[in-house]
């Protein structure tokens, strides 16, 4: 009975979402305050019912209700409770429900914090969020019901995909979705602005922290995913450029561009149309990611083959949402460029260049991801482009970003001074070159590694020089407002990330070896001694567990336990052993026994020595932290007085209408 209540809750949520979207839009159009006032209560009601549906599904998992098809497919009696919770979003239907739940979290937050926005504008924003919810709720109700029954009820369920039974994977989808869905706020905001035909700088200021937080979550989700792939897949790689990864990376790239474009629009009033367009792109790419991953156009054929309605539905939804917004943009985007003029050497130019690079990079990733489809369409055969394409083009596009990044903050709005740039170039450049030369002796002249050290020093010194300048020139208390501190942190993160990528890629040592118990392999100052394999068991798996003792100059560093697990349904999953460190990771994955009947004999092992790989994720986390810190800036909070001030500031934009009472 309870699962049917869940379905009923979803239907009620969809009806409320319809009310939340249609009535306030009509109200805003007709100037009817009563209709506009429906927005917030309807959003709250929708959230309650969606939370109820989600709770009911989670409850079904917790009490092993295998009469629910989705529960029976994705869990069994041996699955520990925390993975049963994670199993809620372990497959298509449930992850869609999680998507909707998170959309509601954002909508409720939006409804709560938008009290001080003009009512017409706020109700339009909430209505657009409602429209998105209608689409997704219809999708789940008509094509992907998670509450479908399975009769007769089986005694035990199947299993959660063992690949997903890992703490990283429990954490990864909710973070990623927080990011994806968070871009809907900037999107709703832009659509509302286009509908109303006006875009105040104060509103962009208000939207900025939302974009930053969404982007920070997305960063966190991607970092978690990358870490998971590294730890779990047993290949020691951290990024594979596969369509699913690209689906999350494209909105991230556009998100970077959007964050910077919003800064320009908020402070100077320029780039309005571009900011709106980027908001639409960021969210559209999030939707596109959902489409690509779920429709089977590019991956997971079988899900699609079983139900072609899903692909068609998402495509129709995508056409309405994205096509509709872009058409609206074409019709309503500000026709006259607003904002203050700027010279060639200025902060605006620097931000525009970075914007261009990130937007082109996103387009490049999109093209590469869709290439197999284009190949089919033009009858070129089954072609796909892989790491060679991305690995060549992406660094090429990011090179100017890395080179120009230290200059950006030194440039003034409107008109910068080239003298300062020369000083930065001299100081940071000389230190970076010196460090790179010293590093060359330590890395056997590996160009990539030298470039990594150079880039790290170049970016770090650049950021520190600017921090020093603020320290000297600004009075105490105004030196590092949150917005500034966040920027510095995120930019430092870029340096750490680049260094991690280049150093680990050039200095890593990989060895596929056959080892008998007692044998030793010497890799990068470490001796890996294989001490054999024994049998072990966990809550819902059995495993062959290897013991590898690592010593350095005779001193024991660590003992590692790589596993090869077998889950109840016979799925085999490698669990690599990782010894993490700031300057290096040691990584051991268990392959196959040389003789299947003698697990205590020789095994195939994969040994890695990966210097500085942790810096990749550390860099990502610093960027995330930067985004979050930025969002806490007091300046972004709307106060009555701030609004009045913002209105006055915006008055020199050409598209501005008076909205103050």
């Amino acid at each position, binding site marked *: 009975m309870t699962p049917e209540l869940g379905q009923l809750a979803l239907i009620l949520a969809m009806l409320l979402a319809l009310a939340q979207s249609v009535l306030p839009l009509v109200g805003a159009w007709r100037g009817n305050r009563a209709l506009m006032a429906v927005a917030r209560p309807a959003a709250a009601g929708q959230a309650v019912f969606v939370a109820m549906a989600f709770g009911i599904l989670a409850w079904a998992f917790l009490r092993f209700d295998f009469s629910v098809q989705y529960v029976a497919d994705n869990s069994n009696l041996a699955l520990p409770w925390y993975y049963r919770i994670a199993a809620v979003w372990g497959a298509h239907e449930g992850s869609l429900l999680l998507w909707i739940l998170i959309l509601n979290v954002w909508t409720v937050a939006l409804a709560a914090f938008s009290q001080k926005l003009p009512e017409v504008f706020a109700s339009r924003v909430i209505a657009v969020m409602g429209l998105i919810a209608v689409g997704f709720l219809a999708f789940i109700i008509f094509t992907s019901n998670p509450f479908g029954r399975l009769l007769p009820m089986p005694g035990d369920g199947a299993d959660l995909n063992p690949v997903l039974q890992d703490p990283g994977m429990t954490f990864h989808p909710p973070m990623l979705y927080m990011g994806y869905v968070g871009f809907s706020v900037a999107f709703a905001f832009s659509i509302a602005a286009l509908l109303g035909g006006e875009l105040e700088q104060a509103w962009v200021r208000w939207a900025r922290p939302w974009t930053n937080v969404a982007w920070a979550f997305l960063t966190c989700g991607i970092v978690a995913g990358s870490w998971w792939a590294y730890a779990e897949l047993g290949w020691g790689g951290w990024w594979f450029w596969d369509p699913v990864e690209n689906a999350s990376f494209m909105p991230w790239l556009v998100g970077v561009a959007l964050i910077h474009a919003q800064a320009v629009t908020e402070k100077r009033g320029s780039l309005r149309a571009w900011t709106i367009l980027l908001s639409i792109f960021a969210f559209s790419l999030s939707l596109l990611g959902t489409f690509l991953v779920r*429709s089977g156009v590019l991956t997971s054929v079988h899900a699609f083959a079983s139900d072609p309605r899903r692909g068609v539905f998402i495509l129709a939804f995508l056409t309405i949402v994205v096509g509709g917004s872009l058409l609206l943009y074409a019709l309503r985007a500000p026709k006259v460029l607003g904002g203050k003029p700027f010279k060639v050497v200025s902060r605006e130019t620097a931000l525009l260049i970075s914007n261009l690079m990130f937007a082109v990079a996103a387009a490049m990733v999109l093209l590469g991801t869709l290439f197999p489809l284009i190949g089919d369409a033009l009858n070129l055969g089954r072609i796909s482009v892989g790491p060679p394409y991305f690995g060549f083009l992406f660094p090429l596009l990011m090179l100017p970003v890395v080179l120009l990044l230290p200059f950006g903050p030194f440039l003034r709005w409107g008109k910068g001074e080239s003298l300062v740039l020369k000083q930065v170039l001299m100081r940071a450049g000389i230190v970076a070159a010196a460090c790179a030369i010293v590093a060359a002796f330590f890395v056997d002249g590996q160009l990539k590694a030298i470039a990594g050290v150079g880039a790290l020093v170049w970016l770090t010194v650049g950021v520190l020089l600017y921090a020093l300048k603020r320290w000297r020139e600004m009075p105490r208390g105004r030196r590092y407002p949150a917005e500034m501190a966040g920027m510095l942190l995120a930019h430092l993160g870029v340096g750490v990330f680049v260094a991690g990528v280049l150093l680990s890629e050039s200095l890593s040592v990989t060895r596929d070896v056959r080892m008998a118990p007692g044998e030793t392999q010497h890799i990068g100052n470490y001796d890996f001694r294989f001490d054999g394999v024994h049998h072990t068991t966990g809550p819902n798996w059995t495993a062959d567990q290897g013991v590898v003792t690592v010593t350095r100059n005779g001193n024991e560093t660590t003992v590692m336990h790589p596993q090869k697990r077998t889950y109840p349904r016979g799925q085999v999953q490698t669990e690599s052993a990782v010894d993490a460190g700031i300057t290096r990771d040691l990584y051991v994955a268990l392959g196959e026994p040389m003789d299947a009947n003698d697990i205590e004999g020789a095994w195939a092992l994969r040994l890695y020595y990966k210097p500085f790989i942790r810096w990749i994720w550390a860099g990502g986390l610093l960027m995330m932290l930067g985004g979050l810190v930025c969002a806490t800036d007091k300046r972004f909070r709307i106060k009555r007085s701030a609004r009045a001030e913002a209105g006055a500031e915006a008055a020199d934009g050409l598209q501005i209408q008076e909205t103050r009472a």
Partner: protein
Amino acid sequence: MSRLLPFIGFMLLVGLFGFGIWWNTQHDQNAIPSPLLDKPAPAFNLPKLYEPTQMVSKADLLGQPYLLNVFASWCIECGVEHPVLTVEGPTLGVQLVGYNYKDAPDDAKGWLAKHGNPYDLLIADEPGHTAIDFGVYGAPESFLIDAKGVIRYKHIGPLTPDVMAKELKPAIAAMLKEAP
């Protein structure tokens, strides 16, 4: 007009996706088209399995169509395919050429003695070098080669009665109709 560009670009994408959905309902995603299809088969010169001193080259087989069946005694799925080949092979209307792949000759002969020998001709590629030219990445695989030495059809995995009826036999019929 320039403001319409994003919209136009997106509609092109929608067209592409629509095509993708249609394409997927029409095609098997797992099929990897062989670049050799409708191309001349690669040249080869391999010893016969039972008379290793006698070589068989591609030129020797020109003039009549044949089905080149890649098999090995170590290959489990070949055991699944074998009875099907034994029953259906003689009815196909083409020569059946066994291509023994990366196999010790004695193992192969033992396997054939045990399960029967449906082949009209047996050649052996113990080092597996020639198989690389054919793009073989596992056994069993089958190549239908016409009288002019052109590959007309390729199947990866065991030939089942279903595959025989729906793919191989129509391909043979089409080939024979074209070049009587």
